[in-house]
């Protein structure tokens, strides 16, 4: 009889094996082997990614989806300007981005229904509508699981930090390395655990490494056989090489950047975070998140955007795209820019706009994603998608596709439940060549 029960899918044993990555007993010796194998298709151009989170929910109507013909109650104060990409118009307060609009695509009419900050954030940061019974992993956790890591730096770095539970069902080993602070222009960053602080010198690091070896012999030969002990040893070596690595230190040292690249950025925390992100990607970090807040403009929307948010975003983000291009990294680095939702097309009594998830914008660029175009559209008043709604799931799937990750790949949660990375999404064809 040649019939196998293949269609019954994953066997219990597979659950255990996958569960082992987050479980205790089986995995550690295999961890590096697995992470260096990765499960990626070779064709994709993206080898790394930068995720720019615009916390608070930026107004789509005043940034990348202007409606000059909408009524006064909706239109807002800003005018659209032309960009260096045919037919792509963005806000007049984003002049620098207008000069590099060929490097990213503007997605309009991205639509969902979660108007609370935390839920919208969970959705946009994972590509999965949040469920009470399951925590989905952040893109960064998935990417650091799927793309091979390197020895001297972590795969996933959050500048300065990320909401907790970034790893969802994947487990803590895929969590971000948080820098804890934003970098300052022209300075080396004191990164938690990496920087030499408390008077510690490189000689101290070497001496202490030697000390550990002198006293860490309690388990004798068994330390090589036991997976937990062997795994700890490997992490010890990796930590040591990170602490010692001039390359790792240099990655966080903005004083090492060239003047021409520095000149592409502003000197504020967001710009410098973007600069750091490009340096980290240059040093083979796989996933970097940077963040710019202040978009929750329930009141005085236009002054806030005009005077602060848009200039900051314009400087940092244009710097990011231009620096990646200058460093020759744009083709291999996928960039995803998003808030948790858009803002109400109708201007409220306080001159602000409120939460509005039905018609937001996202930007995607680099990593082989076709820039210089607008994909999707919102309706005349920016109140909803015009024809086809782009879902956060679709955007996520496109982002993953640029990195060679199949969004329908299945993981098993620690409870044995098979879950696709992004079940409901389809990569957007216009964006992926």
């Amino acid at each position, binding site marked *: *009889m040649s*019939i*196998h*029960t293949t*269609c*019954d*899918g994953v*066997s*219990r*044993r597979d659950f*255990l094996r996958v569960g082992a990555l*987050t479980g*205790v*007993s089986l*995995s*550690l010796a295999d961890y590096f082997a697995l992470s260096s194998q990765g499960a990626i298709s070779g064709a994709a151009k993206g080898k790394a990614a930068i995720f720019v989170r615009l916390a608070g929910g930026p107004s789509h109507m005043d940034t990348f989806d202007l409606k000059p013909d909408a009524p006064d109650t909706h239109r807002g104060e800003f005018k659209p300007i032309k960009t260096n990409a045919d037919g792509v118009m963005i806000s007049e307060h984003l002049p620098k981005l207008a000069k590099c609009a060929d490097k990213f695509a503007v997605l309009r009419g991205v639509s969902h229904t979660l108007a609370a900050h935390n839920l919208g954030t969970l959705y946009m940061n994972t590509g999965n509508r949040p469920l009470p*019974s*399951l*925590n989905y992993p952040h893109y960064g956790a998935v990417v650091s699981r799927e793309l091979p890591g390197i020895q001297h730096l*972590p795969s996933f770095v959050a500048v300065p*930090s990320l909401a*907790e*539970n970034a790893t969802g069902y994947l*487990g*803590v*080993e895929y969590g971000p*390395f948080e820098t804890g602070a934003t970098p300052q222009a022209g300075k080396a960053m004191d990164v*938690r*655990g*990496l920087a*030499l*602080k*408390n008077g*510690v010198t490189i000689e101290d*690091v070497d001496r*202490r490494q030697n*000390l*550990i070896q*002198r*006293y*860490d012999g*309690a*388990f004798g030969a*068994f*330390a090589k*056989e*036991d997976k*937990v*002990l062997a*795994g*700890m*040893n490997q992490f*010890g070596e990796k*930590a*040591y090489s*990170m*602490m010692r690595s001039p390359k790792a230190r240099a990655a966080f040292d903005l004083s090492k950047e060239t003047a021409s690249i520095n000149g592409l950025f502003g000197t504020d925390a967001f710009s410098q975070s973007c600069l750091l992100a490009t340096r980290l990607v240059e040093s083979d970090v796989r996933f970097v998140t940077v963040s710019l807040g202040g978009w929750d403009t329930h009141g005085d929307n236009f002054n806030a955007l005009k005077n602060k948010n848009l200039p900051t975003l314009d400087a940092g983000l244009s710097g990011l795209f231009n620096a990646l291009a200058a460093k020759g990294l744009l083709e291999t680095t996928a960039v995803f820019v998003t808030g948790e939702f858009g803002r109400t097309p109708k201007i409220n009594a306080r001159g602000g706009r409120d939460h509005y998830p039905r018609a937001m914008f996202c930007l995607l660029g680099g990593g082989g994603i076709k820039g210089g175009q607008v994909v999707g559209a919102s309706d005349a008043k920016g109140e909803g998608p015009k024809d086809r709604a782009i879902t956060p799931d679709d955007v996520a799937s496109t982002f993953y596709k640029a990195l060679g990750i199949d969004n329908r790949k299945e993981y098993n949660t620690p*409870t*044995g*439940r098979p879950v696709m990375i992004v079940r409901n999404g389809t990569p957007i064809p216009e964006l992926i060549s």
Partner: protein
Amino acid sequence: MDLKIMNKADSILFEHSIYSGQTPFHMNKIFFAGLGLVVAMVVQAKVPTTPTAPERFGQLEKAEEPSFRRHILPLFSRVGCSGRECHGAFAGQGGFQLSLFGYDFAKDHKEITADTEEVRVDQKDISKSLVLLKATNQEKHKGKERIKPGSWEYNLVHKWISSGAKNDTEKTGDFDRLEISPKEIVFKKAGEKTQIRVLAYWKDGTVEDVTLFTRFRTNDDSVSVVSATGEVEAKDKGDTHIVAFYDNGVHPIPVMLPVSDKVGASYPKVATPTKVDELIIAKLRKLGVVPSETCTDAEFLRRVSLDLTGTLPTPNQVMQFLADISPNKRTAKVDELLKTPAYSAWWATKMSDFLGNNPRVLRGNGAQNYGDKFSRQWYDWLRHRIEKNEPYDKMMAGIILATGRTKPTQSYEDFAREMSSYFRAENPASFAERPNMPHFWARQNIRTAEEKALAFAHSFLGVRIECAQCHKHPFDQWTQNDFKSFQAFFGGISYGNKPPGKTGDEKVTFASLTKEIREAIPADPKSGNNQKGLGNEFERRVKAGEPAPWQELFAIAKAPSKLSEREIERLKKQNPNFDSRVLTPKILGGEDVLLTEFPDPRTPLMEWLRSSKNPYFARSWVNRVWASYFNRGLVEPADDLNLANPPVNQELMDHLADGFIKNGYSMAWLHREILSSATYQRSWKANDTNKHDEKNFSRFVIRRLPAEVIVDGVAQATLSTDRLASFASDIEVRAIGPNANAGRGGKGASNYSLNIFGKPVRETNCDCERTSDPTLLQTLYLRNDPEFLTSLEQARGGSSWVEEIRRQTSPVVSKTKQPAAVPEVKPEPMNPDRLIEQVFLRTVSRPPTALEFEKARIDFAAAASPAVGVRELLWAMLNTREFMVNH
């Protein structure tokens, strides 16, 4: 009250105890013709002879009339049609959709026979029926060939169609049980094979050989595999279970291949001082696994202190224990530790994990966030009871049956005053003394009945029924309807401002108190509202112990309700398989319960938990405790009790669960029973037979310390001598204590280490939220994190030891003028050996070896000062794996 709810639960126990060794059996040696090998020793049961499927259906003209329920749908399931990636997918496949794993007979029958063009089953030209053409791949089939034309399977389906393609589900009546032979398989070498046979017993008395209608699964394919037809093959040394699935039956049988020739009579003599040891060794003897030696006294003390109290022993405790010559000092130590504050603190933390005590999902009052305070109340309530060893069942009843009001006769006003009294500024009342603890049900993440059912099953049963939310549980008997029926118990539990549907006759209510506060606070002229002022007034009332508008927990009985049309639509949208029905509350594996007979829908649930035959309640706690001590449960994962996932040692599970109940659900009894066994006291040092054993408890499995324990361990190791002695009991500052959970939502520095070492957020129904994997960030933390490096010099929770040594060894330089009467004290030279010994005792809880002394003296001599020497050695020892793990 007559509760007939145990039927299915009985059968669970029965199924598990079939192979528990009580039934006499005889050994058979089977010779495989042609191979000439002595094959597996199998334990055979007497079985009635019934013809096999090929005998019954092999010849089309002589074939019996097949049964849809007993043969057709099980065959579809076995050959894979109703699998998750084929027609069992929610959307079906190729327009043909079956229920996942084939349990929904009515719906599947309709799907197979009642398609609009009647092509799937073609009565006129049977062999042109699409089910036959597709399954044989005569018509192009994405799933390829599942059955061969002319095979007995083909004939079976053919015959069923020719007999009218009837659904006989009503007629067949209820399924009773499965019986499998052999009951246990012990192989002799890899590559050996043996056939298992499955008999189905139906309530109407029918007994059938259903081997070829059964789905089989191995729980570990590296040890043993099973073919679709039930042939088991040994792959490698070890033990696992083969599980058979047929109709409502899920039945595992143990399969093993001994790891050495030290089996049976060749097994060495091993002392079995306790019943636990007897049962462990009985299994190891079959497996040829010889247990490790007993661990040293120092290892035992460190291990048991960490496991039972989450605390490292102090240097004094180590030295005293090592010097103690009494023979029963280990059990005496367990008794001593059970009386410490750290014991109740640590287990209240662990219990908080299992129960989902998460400040971020606790509210208290619409406007005021009492999350941290309620979480703390919850913790204190647990700890108070653990401390006095309140019976586990009583404690859980206090949670399960809790309502906001402590007595049914309590008025809202008194309730509101009582709630305020716990937080009043003067002489606050003790929440821990409250008879019940309502916060479990008040959580914002379990608002729906569905979510409550899942949380209940996880916390009190150790059962994961998430699967059955949407489809038949793949590894257990639960169907979606079982889940919906179970869920019906929780519909009447709610948390809010007023009981649902009832307009009370009370004068003082949530609304009236809210109104009082509004009236007391003038509105903000700008926004019309004055949230801050209202909040302050709420706080003022609370601090004064006056009634304030607190939300409360309600539990009311609800008559079995029909789902609303909207609800049905929603469920159908989620899952097209959903079969709408009236929901009658039904205990998992039990019978219907008429809720209207009970004032509180949870009463019958609690009775069920306490009934002596409940297969989950006591076992889930026993299993969690065992898992805490051995790094894996008797059932693993520890919160996944299901029929297809039997305990690795059934007899031991029974012994501990029975003992736990007989001893009045005494948690202290359970700790003692386990910790005083030789099994708990094995060394980590492996021998040739047990170095790969991680699940039969033949050696101590090394594991990383839990987050809180590492953080506390670092603190304790670095504290000044005075502070060190009191730290263990000072649970207010301990990470294992009540405050480590508060404010976890924040990104404060103190939480960083707990986060990276895997302290659970308590957000999902899974014990796996607590992780003990080593990670890179953890290593970087201990190597070079500023917080950690600073703690060597300025210990958390008090002054540091390094500082103390620095003070003692450097001349006192006084900045203020001292009165001449105080003579300047010259520091005594420190004895380096004493300091070196202290570092070892503080970190790895043992004195240094001679060789370590030698190395340390050299390192010390090279250090700039004794303080620096101590700091560097402390740094090194805290970075050894010996410190980071329990061993």
